[in-house]
């Protein structure tokens, strides 16, 4: 399947890239890693008139402390323990060589691992317009973010977490997750003082779940109860491979597992 024709632009600065997006509006698409976008172009499901290749935009491929440039390749993304746990499940070795951190965040696939991790860590997204949006505000719905049509992701900010854990079940290694869960908790003297827990795939976007963990003992019992509450809190749509009942159950299992590991 060959893509429809497009005009190709390769800006060298963020300003140029933003100007191109402003000029062409929804006739333009940003090309970063391309691992999600190019299949859609090849299928002709998307036919942008202009492709804005940001792979050579200066300054976007650096990691500085918590700040990760938008075009940092997934295979080069290190230093964030929760993300490090999730990355082996992000596509495959070869797709991570090209896929970018910023691209995964901007694409906002509800089954994606990096958006969930960013949300759970309380991270944020910095845009070309200088906005810094908390992840929970940035992700709106399936493949829909708070980005304006002439705006692109410039960097993402990954705060350090507490005790973290990530779990996913997919049909095969590297596939889109059937369900996934991640958490970052702080435990003092056997009691949970802070907990951020989120799930993806079974929701329209990565979502934090309020499971009443603060003040509870950091125990397997707590984890199990939280899992049950999580299962009740989600309303998974059916997909080709799994029924809503299974996905609901699976989500509960994964929430229990991440909490049990983070507590330990």
């Amino acid at each position: 399947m060959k893509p429809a024709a497009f005009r190709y632009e390769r800006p060298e600065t963020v300003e140029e890239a933003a100007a191109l997006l402003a000029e062409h509006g929804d006739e333009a698409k940003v090309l970063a890693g391309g691992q999600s976008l190019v299949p859609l172009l090849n299928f002709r499901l998307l036919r942008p008139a202009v492709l804005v290749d940001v792979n050579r935009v200066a300054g976007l491929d650096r990691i500085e402390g918590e700040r990760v440039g938008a075009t940092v390749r997934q295979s080069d993304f290190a230093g964030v323990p929760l993300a490090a746990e999730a990355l082996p499940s992000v596509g495959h070795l070869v797709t991570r060589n090209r896929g970018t951190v910023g691209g995964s965040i901007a694409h906002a696939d509800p089954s994606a691992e990096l958006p969930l991790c960013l949300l759970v860590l309380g991270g944020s997204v910095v845009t070309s317009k200088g906005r810094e949006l908390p992840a929970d505000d940035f992700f709106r719905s399936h493949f829909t973010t708070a980005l304006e049509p002439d705006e692109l992701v410039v960097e993402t900010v990954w705060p350090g977490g507490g005790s973290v854990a990530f779990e996913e079940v997919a049909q095969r290694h590297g596939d889109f997750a059937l369900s996934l869960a991640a958490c970052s908790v702080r435990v003092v003297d056997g009691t949970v003082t802070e907990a951020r827990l989120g799930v993806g795939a079974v929701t329209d976007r990565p979502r934090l779940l309020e499971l009443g963990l603060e003040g509870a003992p950091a125990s397997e019992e707590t984890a199990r109860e939280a899992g049950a509450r999580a299962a009740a809190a989600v309303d998974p749509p059916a997909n080709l491979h799994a029924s809503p009942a299974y996905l609901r159950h699976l989500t509960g299992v994964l929430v229990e597992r991440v909490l049990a590991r983070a507590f330990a």
Partner: protein
Amino acid sequence: MIEVTVNGTLRRAEAEPRLLLSDFLRHTLGLTGTHVGCEHGVCGACTVRLDGKAVRSCLLFAVQADGLEVETVEGLAWGPLQEAFRRNHALQCGFCTAGMLITATDLLARGTSSRREIEEALSGNLCRCTGYTPIVDAIAEVAGS
């Protein structure tokens, strides 16, 4: 007009923006060793190296490789990896093999060596002939030596 260094040789050719790198290599440059199996990035048959990293050539446009270096299966030096493939019967029809070799080359360059790591690294390369065991064996032999 783009300029790409392919297997160490500078090549200059016309390429419209939408021309996939896989088609550029195969049809514009005549390097048919890289194969096309799905054109949506799942099967891995089209894997090549771009500036030293294994990538899907069906998910890149030739214009994106302008000024960069591409290595295809034809450019790989014959060595212990290919010998191990042959010794272990790690190919049957041979259609996925170029992608397997390029991915294995990338993997071995990282110094990875456990069987599990090799299997996971190959999870983006589909083979329908061998059942994978001989391929993993071949790479493990080279990694272990």
